């Protein structure tokens, strides 16, 4: 079986050699895992400033592997990660079948329909699949699967985190610009629901229609485009492809902050996080990847660390036992967000605080103080037990 080569492997082996004599003999456990990615062609965007890294997600899994191997070296646990990337139009299902033949642990970096197709394969029935890419609600709701856990936050968690902040600041009068793509409309729907949930008003909406090169014309076009919007506290933008939103801020008719897909936004992870020991994780990531850590990297990192934490605690690599431990109250993952992370027992979503950030700093960590919940205040973010139609987890 091909293994990926990482620099950490050599030092981890050395470490094993150093401590093996001193550590009481334990049963050797080998944990094979696969990172399976379906490459998706990104839509063209106006600016070239922030290219999508080739190793987005993968770099997070690789760092988690190194972090986990160190613990494993003290316990006689070995971890192996294979990375498979399927080109656009390639046969993802064949690759998934191939991977599942050798490992039950899959980190799946793919759109929601592909995640469902893989999860429903007969070969995947006893597998442990982590969705590290899709924030779509249906995967946590009507289309949930018992063999799929989600470390990437549901889109609604990001929107709820933002709305908690706006409400706490009493910036409750908003307007919204919605991009032309289906993903933009989907995120706009999510923002509308979150606004209603937390008592934030969306007074008016406009659809983005420009097809000019805004890099030259933004200063002339955007003020006119936003001039007829009613007065507001915050301008929301739904632009999930990161296409036009960067040209809206500071070009609006009224001097107002932007939020949503740009400006102030809820994220799974952001480079501006430094509290709660996060700077250690950022440093380790940047040293290896030569870039900053993004939400999908963090989702992959938490997924692999989940496996590592569970194997360490129960001393087994059996997927059914791992799943039972991961979904139990005994599971506690340190995710550098200041709180212990676990999984929602009703739909497999990683329960986590979400940073609400701007480009330069953390503004708040949601849930904010004062948003109460009968069980866990982190469940004020995203689909709660009573709302979820998911039955696959026995709920």
């Amino acid at each position: 079986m091909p293994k990926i080569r990482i620099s950490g492997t050599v030092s981890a082996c050395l470490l094993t050699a150093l401590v093996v004599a001193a550590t009481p003999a334990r049963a050797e456990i080998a944990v094979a895992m696969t990172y399976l990615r379906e490459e998706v062609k990104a839509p063209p965007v106006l600016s070239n400033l922030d290219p999508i890294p080739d190793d987005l997600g993968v770099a997070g899994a690789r760092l988690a592997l190194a972090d986990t191997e160190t613990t494993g070296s003290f316990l006689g646990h070995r971890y192996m990660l294979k990375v498979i990337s399927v080109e656009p139009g390639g046969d993802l299902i064949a690759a998934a079948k191939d991977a599942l033949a050798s490992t039950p642990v899959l980190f799946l970096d793919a759109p929601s329909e592909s995640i469902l197709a893989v999860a429903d394969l007969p070969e995947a029935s006893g597998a442990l699949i982590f969705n590290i890419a899709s924030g779509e609600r249906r995967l946590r709701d009507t289309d949930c699967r018992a063999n799929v856990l989600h470390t990437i936050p549901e889109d609604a968690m990001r929107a709820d985190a933002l709305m908690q902040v706006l409400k706490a600041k009493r910036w409750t009068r908003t307007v919204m610009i919605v991009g032309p793509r289906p993903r933009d409309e989907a995120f706009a729907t999510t923002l509308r629901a979150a606004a209603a949930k937390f008592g934030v008003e969306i007074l008016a909406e406009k659809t983005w229609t420009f097809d000019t090169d805004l890099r030259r014309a933004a200063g002339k076009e955007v003020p006119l485009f936003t001039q007829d919007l009613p007065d507001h506290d915050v301008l929301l933008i739904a632009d999930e492809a990161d296409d036009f939103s960067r040209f809206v801020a500071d070009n609006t008719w009224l001097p107002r902050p932007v939020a949503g897909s740009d400006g102030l936004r809820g994220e799974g992870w952001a480079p501006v996080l430094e509290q709660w020991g996060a700077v250690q994780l950022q440093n380790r990531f940047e040293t290896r990847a030569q870039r900053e850590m993004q939400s999908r990297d963090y989702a992959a990192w938490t997924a692999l660390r989940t496996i590592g934490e569970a194997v360490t605690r129960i001393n087994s690599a059996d997927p059914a036992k791992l799943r039972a431990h991961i979904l139990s109250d005994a599971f506690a993952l340190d995710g550098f967000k200041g709180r212990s992370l676990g999984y929602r027992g009703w739909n497999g979503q990683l329960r986590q605080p979400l940073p609400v950030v701007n480009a330069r700093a953390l503004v708040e960590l949601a849930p904010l103080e004062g948003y109460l919940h009968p069980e866990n205040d982190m469940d004020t973010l995203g689909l709660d037990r009573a709302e979820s139609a998911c039955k696959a987890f026995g709920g």
Partner: protein
Amino acid sequence: MKRTLSLLLALLAGPSLPATAGEIWITNEKDDDISVIDTATLEVVRTIATGERPRGITFNSDHSRIYICASDSDAVEVMDPATGEILHELPSGEDPEQFVLAPDDRHLWIANEDDAVTTVVDVDTREVVAQINVGIEPEGMAVSSDGKIVVTTSETTNMAHWIDTATMKIVANTLVDSRPRHAKFTKDGAELWVSSEIGGTVTVFDVATRSEKGKIRFAITGVNADLIQPVGFDFTPDGRTAFIALGPANHVAVVDMKTFEVEDYILVGRRVWHMAFSPDHQQLFTTNGVSGDVTVIDVATREPMKSIKVGRFPWGAAARP
């Protein structure tokens, strides 16, 4: 008993000044300096510049030298506490966070947080004696009072690594709950206590067998369970009471060291981190990172007495007579 009584009487007499004077030295992580608090007046009397991001701080046994982990300067600074002058630096490995000085005052054991290494430095020759590979993000450092065992805890690996100081090799690794922060041996050397920030527990090990002897859990009305995060702690010299800082829960727990029962919770400043007793052990000073102050606790009554403004992100604390 008689002594306790007279102490009580003295306290009842009002917020009296302690009999013996002393100093508490506080490292301010985000101000690159030290605030020196006079334990009699409870005022900051000196502010001393250090290297970048000072965290761990400890005196040698006769208090003639103070060692400071300047994490972002990648150095341990050696200071003359009388003058505040930095005499020299010790090679420390990368990103030193916490350390312990062996009882012989010779070897400084340093956790290198960014490097997954524990570095041993001879403070006399100023040379690195050994580097020991440990888990990811080593932080807590403890040395037994006979100097034979050193323990490093690693935050991401979730382990206590037991090191034989004679061979400078790891002899055992024991798992603890998530994100271990601080470790300390009891004075008699029979127990090792380790706090786990994210796990929310303090584990007590029997040192002879290295097995778990007890686990302390915490609950404060009105505070989310997962925000109760034990970090720094210390013991009263009679070996009866432990004071445990609970981080963002903004409380210090008071624990009976025999029964492991929590007896009290004391409200202090925000994100309480480490602590130091006054030289006479009548007062306890806690560093409150987020509120940028130090809470003074009356050890006998277990009441907070005063908050003292220090620099930004106070982290470590050490006492000098």
